[in-house]
């Protein structure tokens, strides 16, 4: 496979994953705005930080109102991470790597883009927001379904999974990073209504509030929320799960290509670190430091993959 094609696939699925995550953040923010309008501005602010776009937002707006934030996150083409921007970039990449995709995947990505362009042509009215977010989720599910059901499990599939998982690990880690203080046992009073809402927001922004309850009954503590997001390998958006997928797909590449370049050692080390830790040792060492390190290392792994597989020459 061409290095360019591998890079195109990898970034295509990073963009798709990012779009989906941004839509999720909007959904969580909208929920807060509905239930606790007093805290809405600060919630929107931290969601923008989680999405990594607060600098761009502040350059454009002074206030954090639902309409502006939603517009910026969903349909602002000057925001490189808005849903419309990343959907378009994913589709451009798909055109570039068209020969590596099945017809079903290409059509799903193309229709996703055509549908979103239409859907986000005008500013989104509050009443339409749930339906639009639902449509974004549905379109993404169609792409995923096409990938899972029609793509050969070759190196092409591995680069798809790598892009998805690197992006996902980054997204989940950034959500924790922005909200880390609400998860610290020292500063939170277990079971206070405020914390429950904060944790609930975090879980909603990774679409996991129900999964969490399913696994943990009704017991919600800072410790088990953090553990769930970082270490629970059953949860597909946890750091542990994402790293497992990266490791696994690099492993498939090693088998197919017969080489284990540097990114393989890096992901092995990252996984080993997660394996060594329990949630209490993470708290002991400092949650914030742990997450910051994780994000840095995850980025480094992504860059190393680009080099190891000659995405850019």
């Amino acid at each position, binding site marked *: 496979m061409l290095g*360019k094609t591998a890079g195109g696939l990898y970034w295509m699925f990073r963009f798709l994953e990012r779009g989906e995550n941004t839509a999720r953040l909007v959904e969580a923010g909208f929920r807060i705005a509905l239930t606790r309008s007093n805290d809405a501005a600060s919630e929107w602010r931290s969601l923008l930080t989680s999405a990594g776009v607060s600098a761009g937002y502040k350059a454009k707006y002074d206030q954090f109102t639902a309409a502006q934030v939603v517009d910026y996150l969903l349909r602002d083409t000057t925001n490189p991470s808005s849903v419309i921007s990343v959907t378009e970039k994913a589709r451009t990449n798909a*055109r570039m790597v*068209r*020969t590596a995709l099945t017809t079903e995947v290409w059509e799903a990505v193309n229709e996703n883009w*055509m549908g979103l362009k239409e859907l986000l042509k005008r500013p989104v009215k509050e009443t339409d927001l749930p339906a639009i977010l639902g449509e974004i989720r549905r379109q993404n599910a169609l792409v995923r379904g096409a990938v899972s059901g029609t793509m050969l499990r070759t190196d092409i599939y591995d680069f798809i999974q790598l892009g998805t998982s690197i992006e996902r690990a980054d997204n989940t880690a950034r959500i924790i990073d922005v909200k880390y203080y609400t998860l610290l046992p020292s500063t939170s009073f277990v079971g206070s209504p405020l914390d429950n809402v904060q944790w609930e927001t975090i879980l909603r922004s990774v679409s996991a509030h129900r999964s969490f309850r399913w696994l943990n009954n009704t017991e919600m503590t800072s410790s088990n929320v953090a553990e769930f997001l970082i270490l629970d390998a059953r949860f597909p958006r946890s750091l542990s799960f994402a790293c497992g997928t990266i490791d696994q797909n690099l492993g498939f590449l090693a088998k197919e290509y017969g080489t284990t370049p540097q990114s393989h050692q890096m992901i092995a080390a990252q996984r080993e670190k997660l394996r060594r830790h329990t949630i209490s040792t993470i708290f002991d060492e400092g949650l914030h430091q742990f997450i910051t390190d994780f994000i840095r290392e995850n980025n480094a792994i992504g860059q190393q993959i680009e080099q190891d597989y*000659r995405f850019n020459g």
Partner: protein
Amino acid sequence: MNTKHPHFDEMLASDSSVRAPYSGYNTWFSEQDPARLSKKSKEAEAFFLRTGITFNVYGQAAAQERLIPFDLIPRIIANAEWTRLSRGIEQRVRAINAFLHDIYNRQEILRAGVVPVELISRNAAFLPQMVGFSPPGNVYTHIVGTDIVRTGENDFFVLEDNARTPSGVSYMLENRETMLQMFPELFTQNRVQQVSDYPKNLRRSLEACAPPNCDGKPTVAILTPGIYNSAYFEHSFLADQMGVELVEGHDLRVLDGRIAMRTTQGFKTIDVLYRRVDDDYLDPLNFKPESMLGVPGIMDVYRAGNITIANAPGTGIADDKAIYSYMPEIVEFYTGEQALLKNVETWRCSEPDALAYVLENLSELVVKEVHGSGGYGMLVGPAANKREIAAFSAKLKKNPGNYIAQPTLSLSTVPILAKKQLAPRHVDLRPYVLCSPKGINITPGGLTRVALREGSLVVNSSQGGGTKDTWVLED
């Protein structure tokens, strides 16, 4: 613009009876509900958009993608007509390859005085880098798209030879695919020759042109200028259908005297490069130094016999419109036979007598740039107003050698589905021809382009033309 002379309609004779090749289709058509057909037509459009069968329009906002309108009434050619046409095309393509080899080597045709020397020596499409070199298998035009027009029952003319990088073959394939999906019954009721083998034939034909230094199974790749090129869809479509890599200049480099592409596992040698990049942009070391689309040094690799470039650099000299006017003589010179296909009468404005005639009759003629393509920069006299003609006349006088003129042909028509009924529209035909040392292969039919506006003669997709599925019937 309205044509002055009654034109030849390929489906309906002047007494409104249905011509023989269309009789089977007409039986089916007369049983169709017009509303259903019109719905099918919209379905086809949605299908093209969804699958991304689009082209980019130059001069419009970046990444603007458009559909080429598809008309669902097929253009039907009888087997006997096709046999005659394809013999003529084959003869012409053989002559073109012989001509190119001669022009870049012994130049006997110039010495014999059949083609004037100035036409070659002062022609930008003539590449000195090709002189004294024979490409693998002596094939210059691996892929040709001969544009053919019809004016009467037995009157076919070659309009252009397109020996550089003819495009549109993906539409030929997708149009058939669409028809098969929408109206499968038509293909059980009518015996239509297949076109779907084209990608396989193209790959085999290219492989058969591998360079002498290639050992083992040749690796083929398509070189595209990238996703913003107007024909990008076609490049990726063909790569996909042939099962070869689609590369851009920055994926390639010269390595140990070969052309290699950067893969996830290191560099891999390419033997045959089907390039959809113009000569000028192919090699910044040998041609335009600012080109980002090509591969520095590829011409040296080529001349050392380590890669095949398809089509060969410098083939443009053969589809130069001034050379075109000599094509009957060229065919005769190299084959010893009369040309089977006629040329359109052509005035070379470089010649004073011809220029005088052309200036006198601009409102009747079609004037084209010698190196132009895509319907840009041409004058269609009968459709132009006085001011346009005056402006063009000034351009023409300034640089007469840059133009040729042809009579406005009364192109044949084929009906399209317009507002639920049939309406005649002018068409042309571009059959696709593959050349290799193993022989010449012509896909039955080709791409029919249709001028969708009533009376219009301009079929180019960049100028509002559409396409039709083209059937060649079996005997």
